[in-house]
């Protein structure tokens, strides 16, 4: 099951050229970019691990793309996303966030039912990948 979170996630995966253009768009709006990765793609997992510090004062997308590629090399079977942060007063939030790499195989989520009092059923979604410990999910690769 394809994980859809962040911008462009319903589109086919972006190519490097397209990623470069999106990063350039963010930089031209003076939104600093950062790269993050995770192997726990639960939709409520908002805090992914940071790949290095956010990159400030960049003018060209090549710098961010170099970090994306470095992260891809180190974490070939992780989800990787690029965040662009709008620091202007009144916004101060992530302005653009999109996935730039996903594992080759995404097993998806199962629905878990929990019986509660008065025959209530509580539902939760559980990623199959999360059954394995951190770092050994997605084909057992780092």
């Amino acid at each position: 099951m394809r994980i859809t979170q962040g911008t462009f996630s319903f589109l086919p995966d972006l190519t490097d050229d397209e990623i470069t253009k999106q990063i350039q768009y963010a930089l031209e709006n003076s939104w600093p970019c950062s790269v993050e990765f995770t192997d726990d793609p639960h939709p409520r997992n908002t805090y992914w691990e940071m790949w290095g510090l956010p990159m400030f004062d960049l003018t060209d997308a090549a710098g961010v793309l170099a970090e994306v590629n470095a992260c891809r090399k180190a974490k070939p079977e992780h989800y990787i996303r690029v965040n662009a942060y709008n620091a202007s007063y009144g916004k101060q939030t992530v302005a653009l966030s999109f996935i730039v790499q996903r594992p080759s195989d995404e097993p998806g989520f199962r629905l878990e039912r929990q019986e509660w009092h008065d025959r209530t059923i509580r539902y939760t979604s559980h990623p199959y990948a999360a059954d394995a410990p951190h770092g050994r999910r997605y084909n057992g690769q780092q």
Partner: protein
Amino acid sequence: MTANRPSRNSQEPGSESPARIGFGMSPPGRDPSGSGTSESGASDEAPDEERTLPPDALVDLAKERAETGIDEVFSSLDADLVGLAPVKNRIREIAALLLVDRARAQFGLSTSRPNLHMCFTGSPGTGKTTVAMRMADMLHRLGYLRRGHLVSVTRDDLVGQYVGHTAPKTREVLKRAMGGLLFIDEAYYLYREDNERDYGQESIEILLQVMEGQREDLVVILAGYKDRMDSFFVSNPGMSSRIAHHIDFPDYTLQELEDIGKLMVREEGYGFTPEAQETFREYLKRRKSQPRFANARSVRNAIERARLRHASRLMETDRPVGKTELTTLAPEDLLGSRVFADQDSSPAS
């Protein structure tokens, strides 16, 4: 698994884009989503193929030249920078090569991207930084730098203070310079031969790696004094061979210094009286023979001090002053200098 990803990415634009157009998305350009960019990317490529000229076509280089607006850079180079004939010649040669490469590309001739890393050597105040700024502008106009900004750094910005600090610091500077020009002032400080465990070496290695691997992303200019840069290259032969253009900035002649002074005075909105001009020449002649003479920088400092003396001279007069007095530097403003004091006193004593 790594092999899987690029192949999947590469087959997508071809296989997916017709489907996207079929869905009737909003026109490209206004659409901020990925589909808009991919379509505009495709439309960028199509004219490129059309533009490939037949083998018997002719290219008007003068017109190409005019289109890039490179002449503006040259004329401002000539107007603002006095002397430096060898430097200007070399810049013209580089520009010509880049223009010819562009013309060749129009015929579909593959040209490897020229190595544009440079080394500027010369005495202090010979205009290395100024030329680097012009160079960034010129390379941007010729399309060899995507953004054309200048990032000026020294050893402090590249080399860290403790183990493991240097690499991220250098990489951060390189990322900031991507798409533009990285100017490393006093580059010989990066390497300290007396301390083999100095972190500068680590910084040099990362620089070399990027200079070789990401030539299309940035141009590196090293600057420094001639003799110290020479010994820097002796101890770092890899650096020397990766730099294609070693440009030496000659010292200014007396006449050139005078012209620079006049230019600076005019920029500040002042003027010399004819006698002051004579005094200024005499000042330069004496200052030039003294130690720690820093060419144009010394000229600038001399003019700054002359302005100070000019201001205090005006404050001492009781009568009201007009525009002429406010804008004219007289000989006594220059004669108050230590340069004249030393020389006048030494023969007397």
